[in-house]
């Protein structure tokens, strides 16, 4: 027991240490960055007198109208570059456009600055461009194919929607996002291309799957070797969590069938937990995999199938023909029950997404406060004060987020278990 406590304390302390480290670094980088920006702006302001840039290039940040929302969305969204600290690592792009076919290349081909965090490409490849780390495509068919050097990418707010434009040869070409199946609910929709890339989230998923495989393989081997002995090392941490889920989630909710569904519940719990915690590690890409609707959608769809394929006669009877209920009530009850079948996985999907994304956004907004108060480095005194307050708030939020990472993984698992339990329950009336 003492060992478990010590391991937990160690993990917590290590995470806090990492967080603290990130903040000191973060400020440094951003401050540095801001200076760069400032100098650039000066250069451009001079050049603009002589030659036109077609409206592209760096713009001076106006502290009065600066909106932290795009910065926050840039940080929580998936990307085609993996940024570790101030450096960007290229990732493979697998893109499909119906009018062009399949294109596969590394995102380094976009010629982004490897030592800049944003990852904005200087080249267009077959009309694809890299805009703030995300692959987008130029809508206009008159734009030449192949590798083209572009003058820059600019963003403009039109009717409350930010639209990106590529500047090339004095003209501006509108760019669009990849196709999503949300039908416009979250600002997406069908566009001219599909993105199947090994993106930042996919890489972090692979890493976590490999890590969990290694962890559980080695723990399983230790169990074989040290049969009947007290747990040691990694076993102490894994066994505590594993037994907790088994005793608190699987057994009470699933009755005597708990052994059949325990592997699924464990896979869900540890996968979500690992991705939640990996997303918490600052400076390591800051991947927001469990805060991505596509990933939570897949998890929820798997849960949907597991629940409904294992549903017994009583489960379906309670949906379509509730026993011992008068017919008029049935007319109301049946549609509600049918809706409930779909609402259950839908809320699973949205709950995980909303909780993780909200936590990440709050942290970014707290960091943004420094830049808002200091007016982007123009007012260093207030900036230092704001930084002190912001670091405190962010550390507090990070600690809460560690808690949320565990709670949301637990809630997803316990709700899945209760849905499976309700679907497989034998009648006792």
């Amino acid at each position, binding site marked *: 027991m003492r060992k478990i406590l010590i391991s937990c304390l160690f993990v917590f302390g290590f995470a806090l240490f990492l967080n603290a480290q990130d903040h000191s670094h973060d400020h440094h980088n951003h401050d540095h960055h801001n200076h760069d920006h400032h100098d650039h702006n000066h250069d451009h302001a001079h050049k603009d007198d002589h030659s036109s840039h077609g409206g592209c290039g760096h713009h001076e940040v106006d502290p009065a109208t600066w909106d932290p929302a795009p910065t926050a969305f840039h940080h929580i969204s998936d990307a085609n570059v993996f940024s570790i600290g101030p450096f960007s690592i290229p990732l493979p792009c697998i893109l499909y456009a119906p009018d062009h076919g399949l294109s596969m290349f590394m995102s380094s081909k976009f010629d982004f600055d490897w030592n800049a965090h944003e990852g904005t490409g200087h080249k267009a490849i077959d009309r694809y461009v890299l805009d703030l780390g995300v692959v987008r495509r130029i809508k206009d068919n008159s734009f030449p194919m192949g590798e083209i050097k572009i003058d820059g990418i600019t963003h403009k707010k039109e009717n409350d929607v930010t639209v990106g434009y590529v500047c090339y040869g004095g003209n501006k070409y509108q760019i669009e996002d990849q196709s999503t199946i949300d039908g416009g*609910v*979250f600002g997406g929709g069908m566009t001219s291309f599909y993105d199947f890339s090994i993106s930042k989230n996919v890489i972090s998923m692979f890493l976590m799957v490999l890590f969990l495989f290694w962890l559980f393989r080695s723990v399983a081997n230790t169990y074989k070797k040290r049969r009947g002995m007290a747990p040691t090392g990694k076993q102490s941490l894994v066994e505590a969590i594993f037994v907790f889920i088994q*005793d*608190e*989630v699987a057994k*009470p909710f699933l009755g005597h069938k708990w052994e059949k569904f325990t592997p699924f519940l464990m896979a869900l719990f540890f996968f979500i937990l690992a991705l939640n915690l990996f997303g918490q590690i600052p400076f390591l890409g800051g991947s927001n995999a469990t805060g991505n609707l596509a990933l939570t959608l897949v998890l929820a769809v798997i849960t949907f199938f597991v629940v409904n394929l294992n549903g017994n006669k009583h489960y379906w009877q309670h949906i379509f023909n509730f026993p011992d209920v008068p017919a008029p009530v049935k007319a109301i009850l049946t549609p509600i029950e049918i809706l409930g079948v779909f*609402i259950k996985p*839908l*809320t699973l999907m*949205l*709950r995980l997404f*909303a909780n993780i994304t909200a936590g990440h956004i709050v942290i970014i907004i707290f960091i943004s406060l420094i830049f808002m108060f200091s007016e982007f480095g123009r007012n260093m005194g207030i900036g230092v004060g704001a930084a002190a307050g912001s670091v405190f708030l962010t550390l507090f939020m990070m600690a809460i987020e560690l808690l949320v990472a565990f*709670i949301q993984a*637990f*809630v997803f698992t*316990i*709700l899945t278990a*209760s849905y499976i339990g309700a679907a497989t329950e034998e009648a006792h009336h």
Partner: protein
Amino acid sequence: MTGSIAAIGMGIAVIGAGIGIGNVGAKAMEAISRQPEAVGDIRSNMILIAGLIEGAAIIAIVLSFLAR
């Protein structure tokens, strides 16, 4: 000042969920103090109910996005 009235709806939905989860937590604390030996059962059921209430709030938030 610009904004969407859906944001107000979102806030109202969150107030409702906050009251609901607050009640769940308060009653769970009472139950634990009354029967400390049942703390495990009470805790997991508390989280389950809180999750279900949160589901209603999340649906309201998404609908307020949709109605934007």
